Protein backbone atom coordinates (compact mmCIF):
# COMPACT_ATOMS: atom_id res chain seq x y z
CA UNK A 1 0.00 0.00 0.00
CA UNK A 2 2.70 2.43 1.11
CA UNK A 3 4.79 1.24 -1.82
CA UNK A 4 2.06 2.17 -4.31
CA UNK A 5 1.43 5.52 -2.77
CA UNK A 6 5.06 6.54 -2.39
CA UNK A 7 6.68 4.94 -5.43
CA UNK A 8 6.79 7.86 -7.80
CA UNK A 9 9.06 8.44 -10.78
CA UNK A 10 11.09 5.64 -12.28
CA UNK A 11 10.25 3.05 -9.66
CA UNK A 12 6.53 3.41 -10.25
CA UNK A 13 6.74 3.10 -14.01
CA UNK A 14 8.92 0.00 -13.71
CA UNK A 15 6.59 -1.78 -11.36
CA UNK A 16 3.68 -0.71 -13.57
CA UNK A 17 5.20 -2.68 -16.40
CA UNK A 18 5.88 -5.75 -14.30
CA UNK A 19 2.53 -6.06 -12.54
CA UNK A 20 -0.71 -5.38 -14.42
CA UNK A 21 -3.01 -2.98 -12.63
CA UNK A 22 -0.47 -1.04 -10.66
CA UNK A 23 0.22 1.36 -13.50
CA UNK A 24 -3.40 2.36 -13.78
CA UNK A 25 -3.64 2.63 -10.03
CA UNK A 26 -0.76 5.09 -10.13
CA UNK A 27 -2.36 6.97 -13.00
CA UNK A 28 -5.66 7.10 -11.15
CA UNK A 29 -3.91 8.45 -8.11
CA UNK A 30 -2.23 11.07 -10.28
CA UNK A 31 -5.55 12.03 -11.85
CA UNK A 32 -7.16 12.40 -8.45
CA UNK A 33 -4.12 14.30 -7.32
CA UNK A 34 -4.40 16.45 -10.42
CA UNK A 35 -7.23 18.47 -8.92
CA UNK A 36 -5.35 18.77 -5.63
CA UNK A 37 -2.10 19.71 -7.34
CA UNK A 38 -3.74 22.41 -9.46
CA UNK A 39 -5.34 23.72 -6.31
CA UNK A 40 -1.89 23.92 -4.71
CA UNK A 41 -0.51 25.63 -7.82
CA UNK A 42 -3.30 28.22 -7.54
CA UNK A 43 -2.48 28.81 -3.85
CA UNK A 44 1.25 29.06 -4.56
CA UNK A 45 0.65 31.54 -7.38
CA UNK A 46 -1.66 33.62 -5.15
CA UNK A 47 0.96 33.69 -2.38
CA UNK A 48 3.66 34.66 -4.87
CA UNK A 49 1.66 37.49 -6.45
CA UNK A 50 0.47 38.76 -3.06
CA UNK A 51 4.06 38.91 -1.79
CA UNK A 52 5.20 40.82 -4.85
CA UNK A 53 2.21 43.18 -4.88
CA UNK A 54 -0.03 43.63 -1.84
CA UNK A 55 -2.85 44.85 -4.08
CA UNK A 56 -3.29 41.32 -5.42
CA UNK A 57 -5.58 40.10 -2.65
CA UNK A 58 -7.41 43.43 -2.20
CA UNK A 59 -11.17 43.05 -2.45
CA UNK A 60 -11.18 45.08 -5.65
CA UNK A 61 -8.67 42.79 -7.30
CA UNK A 62 -10.34 39.63 -6.08
CA UNK A 63 -13.51 40.87 -7.72
CA UNK A 64 -11.72 41.49 -10.98
CA UNK A 65 -10.12 38.03 -10.64
CA UNK A 66 -13.60 36.55 -10.32
CA UNK A 67 -14.60 38.47 -13.42
CA UNK A 68 -11.61 37.06 -15.29
CA UNK A 69 -12.61 33.57 -14.16
CA UNK A 70 -16.32 32.98 -14.30
CA UNK A 71 -17.12 33.13 -18.02
CA UNK A 72 -14.15 30.97 -19.04
CA UNK A 73 -14.87 28.52 -16.23
CA UNK A 74 -18.52 28.15 -17.26
CA UNK A 75 -17.43 27.48 -20.85
CA UNK A 76 -14.77 24.99 -19.75
CA UNK A 77 -17.33 22.90 -17.83
CA UNK A 78 -19.30 22.49 -21.05
CA UNK A 79 -16.16 21.70 -23.01
CA UNK A 80 -15.19 19.03 -20.47
CA UNK A 81 -18.40 17.12 -21.29
CA UNK A 82 -17.62 17.28 -25.02
CA UNK A 83 -13.94 16.43 -24.60
CA UNK A 84 -14.90 13.36 -22.54
CA UNK A 85 -17.15 12.30 -25.45
CA UNK A 86 -14.09 12.61 -27.66
CA UNK A 87 -15.40 15.77 -29.38
CA UNK A 88 -14.58 19.48 -29.28
CA UNK A 89 -16.44 22.74 -29.92
CA UNK A 90 -14.25 25.46 -31.44
CA UNK A 91 -17.29 27.71 -31.98
CA UNK A 92 -18.24 28.06 -28.31
CA UNK A 93 -16.50 31.46 -28.10
CA UNK A 94 -18.75 32.69 -30.89
CA UNK A 95 -21.81 31.30 -29.12
CA UNK A 96 -20.63 33.46 -26.19
CA UNK A 97 -20.90 36.46 -28.52
CA UNK A 98 -24.08 35.28 -30.26
CA UNK A 99 -26.36 34.81 -27.21
CA UNK A 100 -26.34 38.49 -26.12
CA UNK A 101 -26.93 39.60 -29.73
CA UNK A 102 -29.88 37.22 -30.10
CA UNK A 103 -31.18 38.48 -26.75
CA UNK A 104 -30.74 42.09 -27.85
CA UNK A 105 -32.66 41.53 -31.08
CA UNK A 106 -35.44 39.63 -29.33
CA UNK A 107 -35.61 42.35 -26.66
CA UNK A 108 -36.66 44.84 -29.36
CA UNK A 109 -40.06 43.16 -29.65
CA UNK A 110 -40.38 40.85 -26.63
CA UNK A 111 -40.09 41.24 -22.86
CA UNK A 112 -36.62 40.77 -21.40
CA UNK A 113 -37.13 37.40 -19.66
CA UNK A 114 -38.34 35.91 -22.95
CA UNK A 115 -35.49 37.60 -24.83
CA UNK A 116 -32.96 35.98 -22.49
CA UNK A 117 -34.53 32.59 -23.09
CA UNK A 118 -34.38 33.28 -26.83
CA UNK A 119 -30.65 34.02 -26.52
CA UNK A 120 -30.03 30.73 -24.72
CA UNK A 121 -32.21 28.72 -27.10
CA UNK A 122 -30.43 30.27 -30.09
CA UNK A 123 -27.10 28.97 -28.80
CA UNK A 124 -28.61 25.57 -28.03
CA UNK A 125 -29.68 25.43 -31.69
CA UNK A 126 -26.08 26.24 -32.69
CA UNK A 127 -24.99 23.28 -30.55
CA UNK A 128 -27.67 21.12 -32.16
CA UNK A 129 -26.30 21.96 -35.63
CA UNK A 130 -22.73 21.20 -34.47
CA UNK A 131 -23.92 17.91 -33.01
CA UNK A 132 -25.94 16.83 -36.04
CA UNK A 133 -23.04 17.69 -38.38
CA UNK A 134 -20.66 15.65 -36.22
CA UNK A 135 -22.83 12.67 -35.30
CA UNK A 136 -25.10 12.20 -38.31
CA UNK A 137 -23.18 13.81 -41.17
CA UNK A 138 -19.94 12.39 -39.73
CA UNK A 139 -17.95 15.58 -40.12
CA UNK A 140 -15.19 15.52 -37.47
CA UNK A 141 -16.21 17.97 -34.75
CA UNK A 142 -12.93 19.85 -35.14
CA UNK A 143 -13.93 20.73 -38.72
CA UNK A 144 -17.70 21.11 -38.17
CA UNK A 145 -17.23 23.56 -35.32
CA UNK A 146 -14.41 25.35 -37.16
CA UNK A 147 -16.97 26.04 -39.89
CA UNK A 148 -19.46 27.20 -37.26
CA UNK A 149 -16.73 29.39 -35.73
CA UNK A 150 -16.29 31.41 -38.93
CA UNK A 151 -19.99 31.39 -39.81
CA UNK A 152 -21.14 32.64 -36.41
CA UNK A 153 -18.29 35.15 -36.19
CA UNK A 154 -19.61 36.70 -39.40
CA UNK A 155 -23.25 36.51 -38.32
CA UNK A 156 -22.46 38.30 -35.06
CA UNK A 157 -21.02 41.28 -36.93
CA UNK A 158 -23.76 41.34 -39.60
CA UNK A 159 -26.59 41.24 -37.02
CA UNK A 160 -25.17 44.27 -35.19
CA UNK A 161 -23.95 46.17 -38.28
CA UNK A 162 -20.54 45.93 -36.61
CA UNK A 163 -21.38 48.34 -33.78
CA UNK A 164 -21.62 47.55 -30.06
CA UNK A 165 -25.14 47.79 -28.65
CA UNK A 166 -26.20 48.92 -25.20
CA UNK A 167 -27.26 45.97 -23.10
CA UNK A 168 -30.53 46.07 -21.12
CA UNK A 169 -29.88 47.10 -17.53
CA UNK A 170 -31.45 48.36 -14.33
CA UNK A 171 -33.91 45.54 -13.77
CA UNK A 172 -33.81 42.85 -11.10
CA UNK A 173 -33.17 40.25 -13.78
CA UNK A 174 -30.17 42.05 -15.30
CA UNK A 175 -28.74 42.57 -11.80
CA UNK A 176 -29.01 38.86 -11.02
CA UNK A 177 -27.61 37.85 -14.40
CA UNK A 178 -24.23 39.52 -14.19
CA UNK A 179 -25.14 43.12 -13.36
CA UNK A 180 -24.60 42.90 -9.61
CA UNK A 181 -21.08 42.47 -8.23
CA UNK A 182 -20.20 38.82 -7.61
CA UNK A 183 -23.29 37.56 -9.46
CA UNK A 184 -21.14 36.15 -12.27
CA UNK A 185 -18.90 34.07 -10.03
CA UNK A 186 -21.95 32.96 -8.02
CA UNK A 187 -23.53 31.59 -11.21
CA UNK A 188 -20.22 30.03 -12.09
CA UNK A 189 -19.98 28.16 -8.77
CA UNK A 190 -23.58 26.96 -9.06
CA UNK A 191 -22.91 25.74 -12.61
CA UNK A 192 -19.65 24.03 -11.64
CA UNK A 193 -21.44 22.20 -8.85
CA UNK A 194 -24.33 21.28 -11.15
CA UNK A 195 -22.03 20.06 -13.91
CA UNK A 196 -19.91 18.10 -11.44
CA UNK A 197 -23.01 16.29 -10.21
CA UNK A 198 -24.28 15.81 -13.78
CA UNK A 199 -20.97 14.25 -14.82
CA UNK A 200 -20.33 12.07 -11.79
CA UNK A 201 -23.69 11.26 -10.27
CA UNK A 202 -26.16 10.85 -13.14
CA UNK A 203 -26.77 8.39 -15.95
CA UNK A 204 -26.08 11.19 -18.43
CA UNK A 205 -22.57 11.65 -17.03
CA UNK A 206 -21.87 7.93 -16.87
CA UNK A 207 -23.03 7.55 -20.47
CA UNK A 208 -20.84 10.49 -21.44
CA UNK A 209 -17.79 8.65 -20.05
CA UNK A 210 -18.94 5.44 -21.77
CA UNK A 211 -19.45 7.20 -25.11
CA UNK A 212 -15.92 8.60 -25.06
CA UNK A 213 -14.24 5.54 -23.54
CA UNK A 214 -15.64 2.89 -25.91
CA UNK A 215 -18.16 4.23 -28.46
CA UNK A 216 -18.90 0.84 -30.05
CA UNK A 217 -19.16 -0.99 -26.75
CA UNK A 218 -21.36 1.71 -25.29
CA UNK A 219 -23.82 1.56 -28.17
CA UNK A 220 -23.85 -2.25 -28.03
CA UNK A 221 -24.80 -1.95 -24.38
CA UNK A 222 -27.69 0.22 -25.54
CA UNK A 223 -26.24 3.62 -24.62
CA UNK A 224 -27.66 6.20 -27.01
CA UNK A 225 -24.27 7.63 -27.93
CA UNK A 226 -25.65 9.90 -30.66
CA UNK A 227 -28.09 11.50 -28.23
CA UNK A 228 -25.36 11.90 -25.61
CA UNK A 229 -23.04 13.63 -28.05
CA UNK A 230 -25.67 15.93 -29.55
CA UNK A 231 -26.92 16.78 -26.06
CA UNK A 232 -23.44 17.68 -24.89
CA UNK A 233 -22.89 19.86 -27.97
CA UNK A 234 -26.11 21.71 -27.09
CA UNK A 235 -25.14 21.97 -23.43
CA UNK A 236 -21.67 23.29 -24.27
CA UNK A 237 -23.00 25.88 -26.69
CA UNK A 238 -25.76 27.02 -24.33
CA UNK A 239 -23.27 27.35 -21.46
CA UNK A 240 -21.10 29.45 -23.79
CA UNK A 241 -24.15 31.58 -24.53
CA UNK A 242 -24.99 31.92 -20.84
CA UNK A 243 -21.42 33.04 -20.06
CA UNK A 244 -21.75 35.62 -22.84
CA UNK A 245 -25.03 36.90 -21.43
CA UNK A 246 -23.53 37.31 -17.96
CA UNK A 247 -20.59 39.26 -19.36
CA UNK A 248 -22.74 41.45 -21.62
CA UNK A 249 -25.09 42.35 -18.76
CA UNK A 250 -22.12 43.03 -16.43
CA UNK A 251 -20.29 45.24 -18.93
CA UNK A 252 -23.53 46.83 -20.16
CA UNK A 253 -22.49 46.52 -23.76
CA UNK A 254 -22.99 43.90 -26.45
CA UNK A 255 -19.83 43.67 -28.53
CA UNK A 256 -20.10 41.92 -31.91
CA UNK A 257 -16.44 40.92 -31.58
CA UNK A 258 -16.72 39.61 -28.00
CA UNK A 259 -15.52 36.11 -27.20
CA UNK A 260 -14.23 34.36 -30.25
CA UNK A 261 -11.11 32.22 -30.30
CA UNK A 262 -9.51 33.75 -27.20
CA UNK A 263 -12.04 32.68 -24.59
CA UNK A 264 -12.53 29.30 -26.34
CA UNK A 265 -8.83 28.46 -26.29
CA UNK A 266 -8.56 29.58 -22.68
CA UNK A 267 -11.44 27.29 -21.78
CA UNK A 268 -9.88 24.35 -23.67
CA UNK A 269 -6.55 25.06 -21.98
CA UNK A 270 -8.22 25.15 -18.57
CA UNK A 271 -9.89 21.78 -19.21
CA UNK A 272 -6.62 20.23 -20.40
CA UNK A 273 -4.62 21.64 -17.49
CA UNK A 274 -7.40 20.32 -15.25
CA UNK A 275 -6.71 16.76 -16.40
CA UNK A 276 -9.22 16.21 -19.22
CA UNK A 277 -7.82 14.03 -21.98
CA UNK A 278 -8.48 15.32 -25.52
CA UNK A 279 -8.77 11.69 -26.65
CA UNK A 280 -11.91 11.28 -24.52
CA UNK A 281 -12.94 8.95 -21.73
CA UNK A 282 -11.61 10.92 -18.78
CA UNK A 283 -11.97 14.40 -17.32
CA UNK A 284 -13.25 16.38 -14.37
CA UNK A 285 -15.34 19.54 -14.01
CA UNK A 286 -13.58 20.61 -10.80
CA UNK A 287 -10.22 20.25 -12.58
CA UNK A 288 -11.40 22.49 -15.41
CA UNK A 289 -12.63 25.10 -12.92
CA UNK A 290 -9.33 25.05 -11.03
CA UNK A 291 -7.48 25.20 -14.35
CA UNK A 292 -9.39 28.40 -15.16
CA UNK A 293 -8.59 29.83 -11.73
CA UNK A 294 -4.86 29.18 -12.29
CA UNK A 295 -4.97 30.81 -15.73
CA UNK A 296 -6.86 33.82 -14.37
CA UNK A 297 -4.47 34.25 -11.44
CA UNK A 298 -1.51 34.15 -13.82
CA UNK A 299 -3.08 36.57 -16.27
CA UNK A 300 -4.18 38.99 -13.55
CA UNK A 301 -1.01 38.65 -11.47
CA UNK A 302 1.33 39.22 -14.38
CA UNK A 303 -0.61 42.25 -15.56
CA UNK A 304 -0.40 43.68 -12.00
CA UNK A 305 3.36 43.19 -12.21
CA UNK A 306 3.39 44.89 -15.57
CA UNK A 307 4.50 41.74 -17.39
CA UNK A 308 3.41 41.95 -21.00
CA UNK A 309 0.72 39.81 -22.57
CA UNK A 310 3.35 38.15 -24.73
CA UNK A 311 5.24 36.86 -21.70
CA UNK A 312 1.96 35.57 -20.36
CA UNK A 313 1.37 33.68 -23.59
CA UNK A 314 4.81 32.07 -23.35
CA UNK A 315 4.01 30.90 -19.82
CA UNK A 316 0.56 29.69 -20.86
CA UNK A 317 2.12 27.72 -23.71
CA UNK A 318 4.58 26.03 -21.36
CA UNK A 319 1.79 25.23 -18.90
CA UNK A 320 -0.33 23.56 -21.60
CA UNK A 321 2.58 21.57 -23.01
CA UNK A 322 3.51 20.39 -19.52
CA UNK A 323 -0.07 19.41 -18.76
CA UNK A 324 -0.44 17.55 -22.07
CA UNK A 325 2.86 15.73 -21.60
CA UNK A 326 1.67 14.64 -18.20
CA UNK A 327 -1.62 13.43 -19.75
CA UNK A 328 0.20 11.37 -22.37
CA UNK A 329 2.53 9.97 -19.73
CA UNK A 330 -0.39 9.02 -17.51
CA UNK A 331 -2.16 7.50 -20.51
CA UNK A 332 0.82 5.30 -21.42
CA UNK A 333 1.14 4.21 -17.79
CA UNK A 334 -2.47 3.13 -17.89
CA UNK A 335 -2.04 1.23 -21.13
CA UNK A 336 1.00 -0.63 -19.82
CA UNK A 337 -1.02 -1.39 -16.72
CA UNK A 338 -3.66 -3.07 -18.85
CA UNK A 339 -1.09 -5.76 -19.82
Amino acid sequence: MAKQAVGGGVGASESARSSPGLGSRVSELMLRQREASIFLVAIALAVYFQSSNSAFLSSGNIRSLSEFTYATAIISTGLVMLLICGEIDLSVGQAYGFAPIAMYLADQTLVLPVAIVVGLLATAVIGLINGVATVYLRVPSFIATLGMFFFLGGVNVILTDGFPKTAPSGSFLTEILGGADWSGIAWCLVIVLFMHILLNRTRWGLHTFATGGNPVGASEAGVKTARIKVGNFMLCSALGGFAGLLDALRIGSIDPLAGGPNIMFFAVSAAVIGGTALAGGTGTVIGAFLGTVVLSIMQNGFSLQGVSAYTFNVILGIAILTAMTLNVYVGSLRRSGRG
Partner: protein
Amino acid sequence: MAQNRQEDDAAVAPEALRAEGIVKRFGALTALSGVDLHLQQGEVLGLIGDNGAGKSTLIKTITGFHRPDEGQMYVDGKPVTLRSVAQARALGIETVFQDLALISELSVYHNMFLNSELTLKPFPLLNNRKMKERAKQYIDDMGVNIPSIDTQVGRLSGGQRQAIAVARSVYSDARILLLDEPLAAMGAKEGAMILDLVQKLKNEGRVSIILIAHNYSHVFEVCDRVNLLQHGRISYDKPTSESSVEELTELVVAEYRKARTTS
Protein backbone atom coordinates in the same frame (compact mmCIF):
# COMPACT_ATOMS: atom_id res chain seq x y z
CA MET B 1 -42.55 -29.47 -43.04
CA ALA B 2 -41.91 -26.29 -41.05
CA GLN B 3 -45.45 -26.62 -39.75
CA ASN B 4 -44.78 -30.15 -38.50
CA ARG B 5 -41.57 -29.20 -36.78
CA GLN B 6 -43.29 -26.42 -34.98
CA GLU B 7 -45.98 -28.78 -33.71
CA ASP B 8 -43.39 -31.30 -32.55
CA ASP B 9 -41.53 -28.62 -30.63
CA ALA B 10 -44.67 -27.35 -29.02
CA ALA B 11 -45.11 -30.77 -27.48
CA VAL B 12 -41.63 -30.62 -25.92
CA ALA B 13 -41.31 -27.07 -24.58
CA PRO B 14 -42.64 -23.66 -25.57
CA GLU B 15 -40.49 -21.67 -27.96
CA ALA B 16 -38.47 -18.81 -26.53
CA LEU B 17 -37.28 -17.55 -29.87
CA ARG B 18 -37.86 -18.25 -33.55
CA ALA B 19 -36.32 -16.59 -36.58
CA GLU B 20 -37.73 -17.29 -40.04
CA GLY B 21 -36.04 -16.43 -43.31
CA ILE B 22 -33.78 -13.74 -41.86
CA VAL B 23 -31.88 -11.90 -44.61
CA LYS B 24 -29.30 -9.20 -43.93
CA ARG B 25 -27.34 -7.40 -46.63
CA PHE B 26 -24.54 -4.86 -46.34
CA GLY B 27 -24.45 -3.20 -49.74
CA ALA B 28 -23.53 -5.91 -52.25
CA LEU B 29 -22.62 -8.38 -49.50
CA THR B 30 -25.34 -10.75 -48.27
CA ALA B 31 -24.28 -11.71 -44.77
CA LEU B 32 -27.43 -13.71 -43.95
CA SER B 33 -29.38 -15.35 -46.77
CA GLY B 34 -32.47 -16.75 -45.06
CA VAL B 35 -31.72 -18.01 -41.56
CA ASP B 36 -34.28 -20.28 -39.90
CA LEU B 37 -33.55 -20.82 -36.25
CA HIS B 38 -35.48 -21.74 -33.13
CA LEU B 39 -34.69 -21.90 -29.46
CA GLN B 40 -36.79 -23.78 -26.88
CA GLN B 41 -37.45 -22.53 -23.39
CA GLY B 42 -34.53 -23.43 -21.12
CA GLU B 43 -32.50 -24.86 -23.98
CA VAL B 44 -28.82 -24.29 -24.69
CA LEU B 45 -28.29 -24.08 -28.44
CA GLY B 46 -24.78 -24.25 -29.84
CA LEU B 47 -24.25 -22.16 -32.97
CA ILE B 48 -21.11 -22.90 -34.90
CA GLY B 49 -19.74 -21.78 -38.23
CA ASP B 50 -16.47 -20.71 -39.72
CA ASN B 51 -15.23 -17.15 -39.89
CA GLY B 52 -17.39 -15.09 -42.19
CA ALA B 53 -20.36 -17.48 -42.01
CA GLY B 54 -22.42 -14.67 -40.51
CA LYS B 55 -22.48 -15.66 -36.84
CA SER B 56 -21.86 -12.19 -35.47
CA THR B 57 -24.28 -10.62 -37.95
CA LEU B 58 -26.96 -13.11 -36.90
CA ILE B 59 -26.40 -12.32 -33.22
CA LYS B 60 -26.50 -8.60 -33.83
CA THR B 61 -29.72 -9.01 -35.82
CA ILE B 62 -31.41 -11.09 -33.12
CA THR B 63 -30.48 -8.49 -30.51
CA GLY B 64 -31.79 -5.54 -32.47
CA PHE B 65 -28.40 -4.03 -33.32
CA HIS B 66 -28.93 -4.67 -37.03
CA ARG B 67 -32.34 -4.61 -38.65
CA PRO B 68 -32.98 -7.57 -40.97
CA ASP B 69 -33.83 -6.77 -44.60
CA GLU B 70 -36.24 -9.71 -44.75
CA GLY B 71 -37.68 -12.30 -42.41
CA GLN B 72 -39.66 -12.44 -39.21
CA MET B 73 -38.74 -13.00 -35.60
CA TYR B 74 -40.94 -14.42 -32.87
CA VAL B 75 -40.40 -14.12 -29.12
CA ASP B 76 -42.56 -16.46 -27.05
CA GLY B 77 -44.50 -17.24 -30.21
CA LYS B 78 -45.41 -13.60 -30.84
CA PRO B 79 -44.08 -11.83 -33.95
CA VAL B 80 -41.73 -8.94 -33.10
CA THR B 81 -39.85 -6.34 -35.11
CA LEU B 82 -36.77 -5.20 -33.20
CA ARG B 83 -35.75 -1.62 -33.78
CA SER B 84 -33.07 -1.23 -31.11
CA VAL B 85 -30.95 -3.06 -28.57
CA ALA B 86 -33.08 -1.43 -25.88
CA GLN B 87 -36.23 -2.96 -27.33
CA ALA B 88 -34.61 -6.41 -27.50
CA ARG B 89 -33.55 -5.98 -23.89
CA ALA B 90 -37.05 -5.05 -22.87
CA LEU B 91 -38.13 -8.41 -24.35
CA GLY B 92 -35.47 -10.14 -22.26
CA ILE B 93 -32.89 -10.70 -25.01
CA GLU B 94 -29.38 -10.01 -23.72
CA THR B 95 -26.05 -10.41 -25.46
CA VAL B 96 -22.44 -10.75 -24.48
CA PHE B 97 -20.74 -9.40 -27.58
CA GLN B 98 -17.36 -10.61 -28.73
CA ASP B 99 -15.82 -7.23 -27.92
CA LEU B 100 -17.61 -7.39 -24.54
CA ALA B 101 -19.01 -3.85 -24.73
CA LEU B 102 -17.19 -2.91 -21.55
CA ILE B 103 -15.85 0.56 -20.80
CA SER B 104 -12.26 0.34 -19.55
CA GLU B 105 -12.42 3.70 -17.78
CA LEU B 106 -15.45 2.79 -15.69
CA SER B 107 -15.62 0.66 -12.55
CA VAL B 108 -16.83 -2.94 -12.49
CA TYR B 109 -20.16 -2.00 -10.95
CA HIS B 110 -20.82 0.86 -13.36
CA ASN B 111 -20.09 -1.51 -16.24
CA MET B 112 -22.41 -4.14 -14.80
CA PHE B 113 -25.23 -1.63 -14.64
CA LEU B 114 -24.38 0.25 -17.84
CA ASN B 115 -27.64 1.49 -19.34
CA SER B 116 -29.72 -0.13 -16.60
CA GLU B 117 -28.39 2.02 -13.78
CA LEU B 118 -30.19 2.23 -10.47
CA THR B 119 -31.16 5.71 -9.42
CA LEU B 120 -32.29 7.33 -6.19
CA LYS B 121 -35.88 7.74 -7.31
CA PRO B 122 -37.46 10.26 -7.57
CA PHE B 123 -34.08 12.01 -8.02
CA PRO B 124 -32.16 11.30 -11.21
CA LEU B 125 -28.98 10.57 -9.23
CA LEU B 126 -27.09 7.29 -9.42
CA ASN B 127 -27.58 4.93 -6.51
CA ASN B 128 -23.94 3.86 -6.39
CA ARG B 129 -24.23 2.15 -3.02
CA LYS B 130 -26.99 -0.19 -4.16
CA MET B 131 -25.30 -0.88 -7.51
CA LYS B 132 -22.07 -1.78 -5.68
CA GLU B 133 -23.92 -4.09 -3.29
CA ARG B 134 -25.76 -5.92 -6.04
CA ALA B 135 -22.80 -6.11 -8.38
CA LYS B 136 -20.69 -7.58 -5.58
CA GLN B 137 -23.36 -10.16 -4.88
CA TYR B 138 -23.60 -11.14 -8.57
CA ILE B 139 -19.84 -11.41 -8.91
CA ASP B 140 -19.61 -13.52 -5.76
CA ASP B 141 -22.45 -15.77 -6.96
CA MET B 142 -20.49 -16.43 -10.10
CA GLY B 143 -17.33 -17.20 -8.18
CA VAL B 144 -15.37 -14.62 -10.14
CA ASN B 145 -12.24 -13.34 -8.46
CA ILE B 146 -11.65 -9.61 -8.95
CA PRO B 147 -9.68 -7.18 -6.78
CA SER B 148 -12.69 -4.99 -5.94
CA ILE B 149 -16.05 -3.92 -7.30
CA ASP B 150 -14.59 -0.38 -7.62
CA THR B 151 -11.77 -1.57 -9.88
CA GLN B 152 -11.63 0.01 -13.31
CA VAL B 153 -12.47 -2.69 -15.86
CA GLY B 154 -9.37 -1.74 -17.88
CA ARG B 155 -7.26 -3.20 -15.12
CA LEU B 156 -8.80 -6.69 -15.25
CA SER B 157 -7.60 -9.73 -17.19
CA GLY B 158 -9.38 -10.93 -20.33
CA GLY B 159 -11.13 -13.72 -18.46
CA GLN B 160 -12.25 -11.42 -15.68
CA ARG B 161 -13.64 -8.96 -18.21
CA GLN B 162 -15.51 -11.79 -19.95
CA ALA B 163 -16.96 -12.92 -16.65
CA ILE B 164 -18.11 -9.37 -15.86
CA ALA B 165 -19.80 -9.17 -19.26
CA VAL B 166 -21.54 -12.54 -18.76
CA ALA B 167 -22.59 -11.61 -15.24
CA ARG B 168 -23.99 -8.34 -16.52
CA SER B 169 -26.20 -10.13 -19.01
CA VAL B 170 -27.25 -12.97 -16.71
CA TYR B 171 -28.31 -10.67 -13.90
CA SER B 172 -30.20 -8.17 -16.00
CA ASP B 173 -33.27 -10.44 -16.00
CA ALA B 174 -32.39 -11.88 -19.37
CA ARG B 175 -34.63 -14.72 -20.53
CA ILE B 176 -32.79 -15.27 -23.79
CA LEU B 177 -29.03 -15.00 -23.52
CA LEU B 178 -26.70 -14.85 -26.50
CA LEU B 179 -23.04 -15.55 -25.82
CA ASP B 180 -20.85 -14.54 -28.76
CA GLU B 181 -17.74 -16.72 -28.50
CA PRO B 182 -17.41 -16.25 -24.75
CA LEU B 183 -14.43 -18.59 -24.59
CA ALA B 184 -12.46 -16.98 -27.40
CA ALA B 185 -9.74 -15.15 -25.48
CA MET B 186 -9.70 -17.27 -22.38
CA GLY B 187 -7.30 -19.55 -20.57
CA ALA B 188 -8.36 -23.14 -19.80
CA LYS B 189 -9.26 -22.39 -16.17
CA GLU B 190 -11.30 -19.27 -16.94
CA GLY B 191 -12.94 -21.05 -19.89
CA ALA B 192 -13.99 -23.89 -17.62
CA MET B 193 -15.44 -21.32 -15.22
CA ILE B 194 -17.63 -19.86 -17.98
CA LEU B 195 -18.75 -23.33 -19.14
CA ASP B 196 -19.64 -24.19 -15.54
CA LEU B 197 -21.64 -21.01 -15.37
CA VAL B 198 -23.57 -21.92 -18.53
CA GLN B 199 -24.20 -25.38 -17.06
CA LYS B 200 -25.43 -23.79 -13.84
CA LEU B 201 -27.79 -21.46 -15.71
CA LYS B 202 -29.07 -24.42 -17.71
CA ASN B 203 -29.76 -26.43 -14.56
CA GLU B 204 -31.59 -23.50 -13.03
CA GLY B 205 -33.63 -23.34 -16.25
CA ARG B 206 -34.21 -19.63 -15.94
CA VAL B 207 -32.70 -18.64 -19.28
CA SER B 208 -32.54 -20.00 -22.81
CA ILE B 209 -29.06 -19.67 -24.26
CA ILE B 210 -27.53 -19.46 -27.70
CA LEU B 211 -23.82 -20.18 -27.37
CA ILE B 212 -21.75 -19.17 -30.36
CA ALA B 213 -18.52 -21.11 -30.42
CA HIS B 214 -15.52 -21.77 -32.53
CA ASN B 215 -14.47 -24.80 -30.56
CA TYR B 216 -16.82 -27.75 -31.24
CA SER B 217 -15.96 -29.62 -28.06
CA HIS B 218 -17.23 -26.72 -25.92
CA VAL B 219 -20.57 -27.03 -27.71
CA PHE B 220 -20.84 -30.73 -26.99
CA GLU B 221 -19.95 -30.14 -23.37
CA VAL B 222 -22.92 -27.90 -22.50
CA CYS B 223 -25.37 -27.65 -25.42
CA ASP B 224 -28.62 -29.54 -25.99
CA ARG B 225 -28.67 -28.96 -29.72
CA VAL B 226 -26.25 -27.75 -32.35
CA ASN B 227 -26.79 -25.58 -35.44
CA LEU B 228 -24.22 -25.09 -38.17
CA LEU B 229 -24.24 -21.74 -39.97
CA GLN B 230 -22.75 -21.81 -43.48
CA HIS B 231 -22.88 -19.05 -46.06
CA GLY B 232 -25.55 -17.15 -44.17
CA ARG B 233 -27.85 -20.16 -43.68
CA ILE B 234 -28.44 -22.83 -41.04
CA SER B 235 -27.32 -25.96 -42.87
CA TYR B 236 -27.41 -28.43 -39.99
CA ASP B 237 -29.68 -28.80 -36.95
CA LYS B 238 -29.45 -31.80 -34.61
CA PRO B 239 -29.53 -32.58 -30.90
CA THR B 240 -25.95 -32.94 -29.62
CA SER B 241 -26.83 -36.49 -28.52
CA GLU B 242 -27.31 -37.47 -32.19
CA SER B 243 -24.30 -35.53 -33.48
CA SER B 244 -20.57 -35.62 -32.97
CA VAL B 245 -17.51 -33.43 -33.34
CA GLU B 246 -16.34 -35.73 -36.16
CA GLU B 247 -19.58 -35.38 -38.12
CA LEU B 248 -19.51 -31.58 -37.89
CA THR B 249 -15.83 -31.39 -38.80
CA GLU B 250 -16.49 -33.57 -41.82
CA LEU B 251 -19.38 -31.36 -42.94
CA VAL B 252 -17.34 -28.18 -42.69
CA VAL B 253 -14.32 -29.68 -44.43
CA ALA B 254 -16.48 -31.12 -47.22
CA GLU B 255 -18.05 -27.71 -47.73
CA TYR B 256 -14.60 -26.14 -47.93
CA ARG B 257 -13.41 -28.72 -50.50
CA LYS B 258 -16.53 -28.21 -52.60
CA ALA B 259 -16.09 -24.44 -52.56
CA ARG B 260 -12.46 -24.81 -53.56
CA THR B 261 -13.12 -27.09 -56.52
CA THR B 262 -15.93 -24.96 -57.90
CA SER B 263 -14.04 -21.68 -57.63
